[in-house]
């Protein structure tokens, strides 16, 4: 068990490519941190720098208070789960799990006990003697997890471990990883591009964009108070609606329509208004603003209504039980409006 500190860590490749730019993250002992961002945002590079598979160009990474910049991967006391599992194809399930311990000179009896325990936890008992090629994708994933668990490392590093699984298996493995981490209490760093995976797993989220940290916070905090238009658009599905608006007094103008808001002070002048699809309501008796439906996606309990208002595309989540009127007018929940600077895209806190 250990805490991990990432201080001013940058990665620069030849040709002046800045993959990671001065990232700071403090990870407490036992915390589950998810690094999330679109592909190419530097999240995997950051993880691999902590693992020791990439060199750190500048800044320091420390595990358990010890700076590990120059420490060999095998001596960092971490275990990593790879996207394609990276099992040793010529070894049995048992040998795969025991390999790391054997190389560390763990006594045979101890290795056996730990492997047996992990195997029981992961329900892999019937497959101990099988080679990886005789296992299904989900089973391979479990073996990869087992290989990490038996080591009892200071930290687990996960590099998109579920991306190669089918949708159903991904959801169930997600739950298992979460439970397992809670039970073992091992500090974990998890990389994914799937915002849903990030939301469900994380104690805290780190949203990365172009090598920089956009926001660090609990999933709910990030969801309810996105720090920038990037976070607002990336976290949450369907994505938050972002509208360029001009505000004078209590009136928000966009296109040729206006919304009046009471009980809230608004940032004056030009800004970007963010509103989640579920925070838009059908307006009663002619109030609100006009909305034209382009198409509807039925999800069962809810329907996603895609359309536009004064030329601005909007998505609205509505209950399937409510019948859609001929002319739709929408209203907003004043306390659920988010405002972002028109220039920087940063959140404006009133």
């Amino acid at each position, binding site marked *: 068990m250990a805490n991990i500190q990432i201080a001013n860590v940058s990665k620069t490749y030849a040709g002046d490519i800045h993959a990671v730019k001065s990232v700071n993250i403090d990870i407490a002992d036992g915390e589950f941190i998810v690094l999330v961002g679109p592909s190419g945002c530097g999240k995997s590079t950051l993880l691999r720098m902590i*693992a*020791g*598979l990439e060199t750190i160009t500048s800044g320091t990474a420390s595990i358990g208070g010890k700076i590990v910049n120059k420490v*060999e*991967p*095998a*001596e960092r006391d*971490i*275990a*990593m789960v*790879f*996207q*394609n599992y*990276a*099992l*040793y*194809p*010529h070894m049995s399930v048992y040998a795969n799990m025991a*390999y*790391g311990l054997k*190389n560390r000179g763990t006594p045979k009896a101890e290795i056996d006990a730990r492997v047996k325990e992990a195997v029981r936890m992961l329900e892999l008992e019937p497959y101990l003697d099988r080679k990886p*090629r005789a296992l299904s994708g989900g089973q391979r994933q479990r073996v990869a997890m087992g*290989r990490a668990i038996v080591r009892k490392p200071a930290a687990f590093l996960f590099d998109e471990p579920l991306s190669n699984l089918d949708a159903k298996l991904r959801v169930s493995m997600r739950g298992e990883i979460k439970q397992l981490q809670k039970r073992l209490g091992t500090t974990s760093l998890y990389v994914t591009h799937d915002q849903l995976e990030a939301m469900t797993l994380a104690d805290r989220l780190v949203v990365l964009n172009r090598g920089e940290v956009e926001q660090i916070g609990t999933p709910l905090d990030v969801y309810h108070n996105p720090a920038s238009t990037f976070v607002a658009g990336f976290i949450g599905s369907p994505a938050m609606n972002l509208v360029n608006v001009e505000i004078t007094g209590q009136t928000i103008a966009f296109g040729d329509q206006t919304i009046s808001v009471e009980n809230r002070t608004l940032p004056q002048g030009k800004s970007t208004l963010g509103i989640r699809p579920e925070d838009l309501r059908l307006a009663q008796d002619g109030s609100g603003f006009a909305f034209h439906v382009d198409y509807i996606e039925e999800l069962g309990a809810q329907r996603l209504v895609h359309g536009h208002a004064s030329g601005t595309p909007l998505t609205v989540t509505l209950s399937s039980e409510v019948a859609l009127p001929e002319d739709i007018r929408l209203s907003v929940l004043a306390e659920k409006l988010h405002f972002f600077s028109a220039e920087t895209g940063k959140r404006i806190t009133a």
Partner: protein
Amino acid sequence: MKRVQFSHPYLPYLFLLPQMAVIFIFFYWPSAQAIQSSFYLEDPFGFGSTFVGINNYTDILSSSEYMRIAWFTVWFTVLVTFFSLSIGLLLAVKADAILKGASAYKTLLISVYAVAPPVAGLIGVMFFDQHIGPFVKFAALFGWDMRIGINYYDTAIAMITIAVWKQIPYNFIFFLSGLQGIPVSVREASAIDCRSGLRRFWTITLPLLSPTAFFLLIINMTYALFDTFGIVDTTVKDKAANNPITLVYKVYMDGFRGNDLGGSSAQSVILMIVVFVLTIFQFRFLERRVHYN
């Protein structure tokens, strides 16, 4: 698999014919001829032959000279195979680890393979030449007076060195592509699991290379046994007298220099049997230990 239907039933056999003809003319027919003539004593001037049963075989197997050459061939094959495989592997591992200038390095190593065996033999002989050979001069620095073609062991060492040198690039190509076939993430996982690079090599890299290594083992043994003819010939400079030669070279010497066609045929039949046994052994006992992914 796609199944092709031929309208004419003989058409597929027609397609097979050229290949079958080549195998028959250049392999089965000479083999059958060799087996047949190994039971005859041929007149050196071609005036007929006498059936002698297995006399040719008993003569060979009771000849101390033949046994001496057979032992040399065994040692030659083992040493050439061992060194060309291990040096080829070492170079491939080093080339694989290089990041800068990798392609130039690889091209330099691979290009030697384009040299034909007799030319390699010639170049090798020049390296070991009594007057201008740098290797001989180098050996002289340590007080070793190398006499190729005169001293049995010096000649043997030169012959093995040249044969190994010629075969390294071939092994290098295969080992390098084998190494590059090992997934990067598996290597990374092993880097996290094991701190010792040498141990990682023995426990992860080498087992994953075993299909390549097995293939090369067979190819290299065949090479050492048969394809080194040109190298042996140029090294002993046609004066086999007291110099080390391999069994294949003896087949040539006895058959075409000694005009003992029957004895030479019997020798090649023995070689055929040896290769047959060796191949069965390799596939039955060694291949079990090979991991195919």
